[in-house]
């Protein structure tokens, strides 16, 4: 199932990236918040990947080219502002996507109706931090702007139609742009104007083409399972 893999991989990969903050977040509350968000995403990933096959095999034994996540979610964490920019872009997208899936009544409606309520908190979290950092100190403003700018070129791919789901992609994109623009402007940040995808980045995560850091992330994520098949504790 193409769609289950695409949506499941988005959730799995972002969950792993957020998990990398454990032990490194700027304050304890954020350590806990990012881990909580990662846990929500992992729960969604488990349900979605189980629709496509064996969740552990899919997560731990696939090669990089077999992953169907968008390139945005595989981008390294960077500084905290960079992570927040990624969270803002992705949570607004995922909420809109799940809202449509929940309303559509297809295979994913049950999960989407449940997960959309969780994602609403992820969006709330990202929005508040974008406002605090963007409209904060000169330093925090600069960092937030840098994160927002650097990740912009990965946002176009979010609206590439995924086979197997009934989504009104143009309206998903329009709503996403309106929400993100509103938050960035309120945060005194400049909305990036560059292209949402670039030739060199391809924007083709859904086709299995990934950016360089993804291989290293997978190596770490899969290492234990591949070295000790069937290990548990």
């Amino acid at each position: 199932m193409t769609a289950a893999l695409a949506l499941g991989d988005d959730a799995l990969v972002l969950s792993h990236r957020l998990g990398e903050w454990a032990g490194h977040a700027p304050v304890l509350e954020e350590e806990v918040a990012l881990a909580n968000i990662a846990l929500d995403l992992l729960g969604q990933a488990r349900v979605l990947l189980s629709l496509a096959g064996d969740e552990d095999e899919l997560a731990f034994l696939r090669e990089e080219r077999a992953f169907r996540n968008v390139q945005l979610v595989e981008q390294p964490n960077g500084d905290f502002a960079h992570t927040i920019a990624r969270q803002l872009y992705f949570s607004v997208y995922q909420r809109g996507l799940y809202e449509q899936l929940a309303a559509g009544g297809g295979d994913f409606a049950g999960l989407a109706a449940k997960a959309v309520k969780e994602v609403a908190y992820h969006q709330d979290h990202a929005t508040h931090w974008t406002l605090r950092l963007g409209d904060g100190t000169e330093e925090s403003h600069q960092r937030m702007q840098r994160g927002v700018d650097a990740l912009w070129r990965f946002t176009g791919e979010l609206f590439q139609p995924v086979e197997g789901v009934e989504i009104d992609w143009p309206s998903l994109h329009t709503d996403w742009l309106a929400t993100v623009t509103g938050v960035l402007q309120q945060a005194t940040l400049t909305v990036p104007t560059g292209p949402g995808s670039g030739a060199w980045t391809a924007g083709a995560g859904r086709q299995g083409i990934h950016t360089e850091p993804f291989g290293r992330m997978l190596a770490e994520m899969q290492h234990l399972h591949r070295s000790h098949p069937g290990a548990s504790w």
Partner: protein
Amino acid sequence: MVTGTLLEEEVRRLAGSVPDPELPVLTLEELGVLRGVEVLAPGKVTVRLTPTYTGCPAIETMSADIEQVLHDHGIPEVSVVTVLAPAWSTDDISAEGRRKLAEFGIAPPRPHDAATGSGGPVPLTLAVRCPHCGSTDTELLSRFSSTACKALRRCASCREPFDHFKEL
């Protein structure tokens, strides 16, 4: 040891009496996660359970605990299945469950009709009462706390931090 065919009500009572592994003051019935039981044959039952959050790790312990309590009451074949729809909401927590949460030091979730009318974040202007001193002068420290279902707040009157079971 119970012999013979148990009524579904009895199975439901037993399964519902299992304490939540993370909030042991609440039973699964009070938490509202028990979605139904079916007696398929004598000694063979199916229990339907819904997770609070999709990734809630407590669901596995809940399933194991339900199996155990039913085995202890003479039902050898127990299958606990997880259902996602309709999605669980904090409105499914019973009135008694809310009372126990507050007594345990966790501010209970506010009903949705008093808030947004649907799932997700509730405007912060709505007061959450401190479970320690009862003051409504409390502030949000973090939207996420010790478990996925809670937010961390602090009371401006008694200065104590406390968990708030956030609305979902």
